[in-house]
């Protein structure tokens, strides 16, 4: 009932101001009022740091005209006495889709749907459907009273809304939450620009990966620049025009986790744009890196629910990372504040908006300061949006957007009474409603008892006690001083109801009614004692924040409490496999200093060195995996037959547990390749497996490679779906290369000719194309090809294409029929990186033989053995040993296939791949002959830091168990304490292989051997 009344009030307010849009004709009589209001005796938060006790706020026509202590109140002012109450600036939310149309996801890509190669957008727009720079929230916006009411109740008056559709989402509009005509609700538009990595409703194939989205954004920046200067004379492009119009606006980038936030920042740096980041609540996990981004964060309060871990076996399906995040997420905002990162708070990403205050208070309990919280909801967003003259504070001249509260906004018992938006009142709770809570002596003519009113002042709970023991909960309505109670006085007679109706009189109630027996009666409830209120918490007092454990680097089980550091190490008396001319050195010592191999010899000594006894053990260079897909968020940008523009370095995932697992197999460096979905894949990323590091700690930027692919995958032979992407045959594959490289040559010539002009004035600048840039780099031997390949015809074909166009194929990877064209590969100078013994799983590997690596080696082709698989990678020493069995390769040579040979193939042999003075100390100490199946790493060392050791692993296991046990107990207590708990889903990590298309291979997916190609 009360709700209905509130609604009625709201509606009536709206109607009165509906007429304020001056250009609109009016149906009825003018109703312009003075709209002059004063709010006196209030504690006024002009902003988070300026508080006025017993102040007066004076507003006129929706604008603050005065705020101070002894203000003159002009005649004709409606005065509201707010003694004991507080006024805060109304809140601002920068992350909202309020008033926007629903984003309809395309069903495309599912069963039976053909591939959508081109954009479905009709008109002179850009080529990609996920780019919507022309979208203007201000044009799409419609008022939605239900949604506005939801936000107003929380204390918000202004939101920045935008259409959450696409990678470029166009401009945002700053709107109020008033229920009014759109014309007056929209404050400013365009006010911001919005970007993301999600293609939204676009069903177009490209991009289907985050690195594709990244590349698309890069290219769009370049295209827009070109359009501004030269392109507008070549084509009319609404999208590029609109994209240019967005520049200069504050730009919000929607991140889905900490790493995508940092990825977005990388883009911003490339184009000299500092984004504002919509975060995801996990920023605390990499706060140093986030701080270095320099961006302001929009921080959600989306704390994960506890898992139901009461079943011991099911509980194992919840990872330590999930449990720790559950524990630490409420401390995210505090961590951000502590790190000194600028941030705003948002009500977005909550399951329901009503969680907002609960979660915000929780964030404060976990260490967020109230001052910062208030600023993050008022002044900071106002400044970011360059609207701080109008919103975010209660200074003269600003709009009259404020909330009236019963007390400290952040206290759990606070009540928001009214939310004023541009001088219009929205009643949230009745400010005049007296606090009726207390104990009353209830007397009817025939019976006496107690009426106890408790609960919240705006929503009291009622209880009647007629005898000492029987407690009855009556049905009560109480509104505008009129009360009605009915209850069953006798439990044994549930159908006999006493009904009392009456009104508030003084501090009590009185009225008349009828008893359960049908007898009319008068009644009265006299206040015996008002409710005892807990002493109001002083704003400054605060309990210490709850203990939340320590972060891990990376934030998963087996992560480091501290990032491993390079040490001075002396490995004594080991059998040293140098993978170098020095061969195998028995009983030798290796000294590691500053991350490098300092000395190799016998009887070495070094002060301060940590000595590792290598007696009976074998020291080898770290294993190098030439073909890996670990530590990546995505593998294939398969939307087009060439994706030379995408970079795997954009999607490195330092949290992947497989980094640690590879270290446990002696792997120290991996080449992270694009998949094999298309002929020209993406640019590779070579990483050192620095577990706990960030992307730049891991990445070796000097390694410039690109993935190519041939055969069944690129012609989509095994997809079984209607495929229409070119090519569908090996004939077409050749033409893809011929076409792209021919264009690249022409592109290069166009730039050369432009660059060599003495005077460029009036000459159109050629369009920069990052796809062709990569191909030009190949032509100029600045970027090198790793080509997924199987059968001899296609290998031969690519060699001929390369020869005819004057570039080199650096590596054929998989190359299972390499043995058939080994002589041709040698002549061309191509290396081979082979599986040890895979065959038979598809037509193009029917002729694969395990002797391949041996033949290639004997013919003189530089050969390595690779994994393409997170599991096999940790047994690469075993896989190399197969070259001994199949083909009789010497053991030292076999080890080279997973050490110095891949280093040479990746052009990194000057720094790693062998044990040689001056090289990176990437080392493995094995407990056994390194090619033996019984060999396990005792130590895996990357650049002098121990990233894996047997005893270190024991310790980590122990820590994982202890920390899990602690968190399980904590979750169970939380559930017992009333927190909602969700059933643990069984999540398995994504395992990427060449053929995986974004989104298809997800958690829980089973891997199969055939994917590995």
């Amino acid at each position, binding site marked *: 009932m009360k709700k209905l009344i509130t609604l009625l009030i709201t509606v009536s307010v709206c109607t009165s101001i509906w007429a304020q849009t001056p250009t609109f004709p009016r149906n009825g009589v003018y109703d312009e009022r003075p709209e002059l209001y004063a709010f006196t005796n209030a504690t006024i938060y002009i902003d988070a740091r300026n508080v006025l006790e017993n102040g007066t706020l004076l507003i006129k026509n929706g604008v603050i005209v005065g705020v101070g202590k002894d203000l003159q109140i002009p005649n004709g002012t409606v005065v509201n006495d707010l003694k004991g109450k507080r006024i805060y600036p109304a809140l601002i939310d920068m992350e909202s889709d309020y008033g926007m149309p629903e984003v309809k996801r395309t069903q495309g890509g599912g069963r039976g749907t053909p591939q959508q190669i081109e954009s479905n957008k009709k008109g002179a727009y850009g080529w990609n459907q996920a780019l919507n720079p022309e979208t203007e929230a201000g044009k799409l916006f419609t008022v939605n009273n239900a949604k506005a009411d939801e936000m107003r109740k929380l204390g918000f008056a202004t939101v920045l809304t935008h259409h959450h559709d696409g990678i470029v989402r166009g401009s945002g509009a700053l709107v109020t939450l008033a229920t009014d005509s759109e014309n007056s609700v929209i404050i400013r538009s365009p006010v911001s620009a919005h970007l993301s990595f999600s293609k939204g409703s676009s069903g177009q194939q490209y991009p289907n990966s985050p690195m594709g989205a990244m590349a698309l954004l890069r290219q769009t920046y370049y295209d827009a620049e070109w359009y501004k200067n030269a392109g507008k004379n070549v084509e009319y492009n609404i999208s590029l025009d609109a994209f240019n119009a967005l520049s200069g606006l504050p730009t919000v980038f929607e991140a889905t986790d900490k790493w995508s936030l940092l990825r977005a920042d990388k883009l911003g740096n490339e184009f000299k744009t500092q984004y504002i980041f919509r975060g995801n609540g996990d920023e605390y996990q990499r706060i140093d890196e986030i701080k270095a981004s320099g961006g302001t964060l929009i921080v959600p309060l989306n704390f994960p629910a506890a898992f139901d871990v009461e079943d011991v076996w099911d509980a194992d399906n919840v990872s330590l990372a999930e449990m720790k995040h559950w524990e630490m997420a409420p401390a995210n905002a505090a961590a951000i504040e502590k790190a000194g990162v600028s941030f705003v708070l948002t009500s977005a990403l909550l399951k329901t908006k009503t969680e907002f205050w609960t979660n915000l208070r929780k964030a404060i309990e976990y260490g967020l300061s109230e001052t910062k919280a208030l600023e993050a909801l008022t002044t900071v967003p106002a400044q970011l949006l360059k609207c701080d003259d109008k919103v975010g504070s209660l200074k003269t001249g600003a709009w009259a957007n404020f909330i009236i509260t019963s007390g400290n906004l952040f206290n759990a018992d606070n009540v928001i009474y009214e939310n004023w938006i541009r001088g219009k009142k929205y009643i949230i709770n009745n400010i005049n409603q007296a606090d009726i809570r207390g104990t009353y002596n209830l007397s009817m003519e025939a019976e006496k008892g107690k009426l106890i009113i408790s609960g919240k002042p705006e929503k009291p709970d009622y209880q009647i006690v007629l005898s000492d023991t029987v407690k009855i909960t009556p049905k009560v309505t109480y509104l505008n001083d009129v009360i009605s109670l009915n209850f069953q006085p006798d439990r044994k007679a549930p159908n006999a109801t006493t009904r009392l109706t009456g009104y508030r009189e003084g501090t009590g109630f009185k009225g008349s009614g009828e008893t359960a027996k049908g007898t009319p009666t008068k009644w009265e409830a006299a206040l015996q004692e008002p409710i005892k209120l807990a002493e109001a918490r002083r704003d400054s007092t605060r309990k210490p924040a709850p203990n939340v454990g320590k972060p891990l680097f990376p934030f998963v089980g087996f992560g480091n409490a501290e990032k491993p550091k390079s040490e001075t190490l002396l490995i004594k008396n080991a059998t040293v496999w140098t993978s170098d001319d020095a061969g195998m050195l028995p009983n030798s010592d290796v000294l590691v200093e500053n991350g490098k191999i300092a000395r190799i010899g016998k009887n070495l000594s070094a002060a301060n060195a940590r000595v590792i006894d290598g007696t009976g053990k074998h020291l080898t260079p770290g294993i190098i995996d030439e073909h890996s897909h670990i530590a990546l968020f995505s593998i294939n940008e398969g939307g087009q037959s060439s994706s030379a523009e995408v970079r795997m370095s954009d999607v490195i995932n330092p949290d992947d547990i497989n980094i640690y697992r590879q270290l446990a197999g002696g792997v120290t460096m991996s080449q992270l390749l694009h998949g094999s979905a298309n002929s020209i894949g993406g640019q590779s990323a070579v990483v050192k497996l620095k577990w706990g590091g960030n992307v730049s700690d891991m990445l070796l930027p000097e390694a410039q490679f690109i993935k190519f692919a041939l055969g069944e995958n690129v012609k989509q032979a095994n997809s079984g779906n209607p495929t229409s992407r070119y090519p569908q045959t090996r004939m077409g594959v050749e033409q893809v290369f011929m076409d792209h490289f021919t264009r690249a040559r022409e592109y290069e010539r166009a730039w050369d000719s432009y660059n060599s002009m003495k005077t460029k004035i009036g000459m159109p600048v050629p369009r920069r194309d990052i796809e062709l840039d990569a191909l030009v780099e190949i032509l100029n031997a600045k970027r090198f090809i790793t080509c997924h390949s199987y059968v001899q015809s296609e290998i031969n074909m690519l060699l001929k294409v390369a020869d005819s166009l004057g570039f080199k194929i650096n590596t054929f990877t998989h190359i299972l029929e390499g043995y058939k064209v080994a002589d041709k590969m040698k002549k061309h100078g191509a290396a081979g990186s082979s599986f040890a013994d895979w065959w038979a799983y598809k*037509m193009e590997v029917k002729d694969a033989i395990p002797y391949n690596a041996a033949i290639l080696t004997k013919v003189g082709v530089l050969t390595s053995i690779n994994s393409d698989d997170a599991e096999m990678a940790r047994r690469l020493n075993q896989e190399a040993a197969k070259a*001994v069995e199949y083909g009789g390769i010497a053991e030292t040579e076999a080890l080279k296939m997973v050490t110095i040979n891949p280093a040479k193939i990746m052009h990194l042999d000057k720094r790693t791949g062998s044990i040689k003075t001056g090289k990176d100390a990437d080392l493995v100490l094995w407990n056994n002959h390194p090619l033996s199946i019984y060999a396990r790493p005792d130590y895996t060392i990357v650049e002098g830091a121990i990233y894996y050791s047997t005893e270190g692993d024991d310790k980590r296991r122990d820590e994982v168990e202890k920390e899990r046990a602690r968190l399980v107990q904590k979750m169970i207590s939380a559930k017992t304490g009333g927190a909602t708990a969700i059933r643990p889903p069984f999540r398995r990590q994504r395992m990427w292989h060449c053929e995986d298309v974004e989104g298809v291979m997800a958690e829980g997916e089973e891997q199969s051997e055939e994917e590995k190609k």
Partner: protein
Amino acid sequence: MRTGRPSNYSIKVHKLYFAQASYFLRPISYFLLLISGLLFQPVSAQNPAPAKPQTKPIALVGGTVHVGNGTVIDKGTVVFDKGILTAVGDASTTFDRNATEVIDVTGKHLYPGLIAMGATTGLVEISSVRATTDNQEIGALNPNVRALVAYNTDSEVIPTLRNNGLLLTQATPQGGTISGSSSVMELDGWNWEDAVLKKDDGLWLTWPPFFAREFNFEDFSVSLQRNSRRQEVINNLAQLFSDARAYSQIKNPSITNLKLEALRGLFSGNQNLYIRADNSKDIIEAVKFAKSHGVQKPVIVGAEDALRVVDFLKENNIPVVLGETHRLPNRQDEPVYQPYQLPSLLQKAGVTVALSYGEAYWRTRNLPFVAGTAAGFGNLDREEALKMITSIPAKILGVDKQVGTLEKGKLATLVVCKGDILDMRSNGIEHAFIRGRKTDLDDRHKRQYKKYNDKYDIGNK
């Protein structure tokens, strides 16, 4: 964890169906598949001819004999005649040297032919080419289908297994809830009739898992959720088993039901019931189900989470056939080597463990290395690891009177290896005998190797 194990390729094909489009191939694709099937049908002539029966006693002397039951005999003597082992002992073992072909294998190692349980070798030739796969019948309940009759002795994959020491596989059907029956095959023969060692040794049941893969067509996400349909599947199974059990009591039923007929052996104990189950709760449920329906010999296959139910498995005397342990841990927080150590941990806890290669076909040749990995990472005695691919599978399969160890009276099914068979460094098979027949160790890979050695003239390099 897994919703049964269809052939590896079919998993992937499913994925791609999900990824892009139609569940069905376009007619043109069928046509292409058909054509490719015809063009690239395994050419039987390329495999070496099966060996002729043993005509003369053979003695292998001087080698290290790994009996397969934990015993190792240095400088041993192994003699066999007419396909049967007539003597196994140390250097003092006597035999009629004049009538016997004596092969000096000094420095070499002798092993019983390795046994790969749950394999699809012979049923799948090229997994991506539908025309070459015969491992999975349509429908959910197929107790009556038999892997035996689809087993292709001319598969080019078979000789490649022999070259790593595998001489016996259990040809195993896949898919559905009940996949059909498996048979134990010798890896040499003209046809399935003469290659079979034991027909229809057991039925294969995939226990409906607690967690099933749920695919969301809206956002292409895949997650493992509580399996909402499992109770229905279990109810259907319960109906089938109780019907079959009652049926099995009728000697000559008036109406013959092929499906119910196929289950008879389970209740008499003539056949094993191989139950694929990984999750610990699935394992308990499945075993209890089998026992409650009078199944005499249940075997758990897969068993990734078996560590949690060690006591249950022991109390119920349930043997376990592990799936491929060359895999990653299932959970982020599991110890990194846990799959490698699983065989050892179970064995040390007293569970009967056999190893398999996860129902693979060509990869099955790496089975000895799975055992080697179990020994190396699990600190397991190598002879114990060897048992997991010789005597223990023989016992589970019910062929232990014939194969699985090198003992007098058993079949002369053995290999002579350059060194330690469990380590790829030394796994070089020099001789293989199946029932005393000296098997030709040629295979497609060796032929290609030789061909290109000749092309490049690198034979001596």
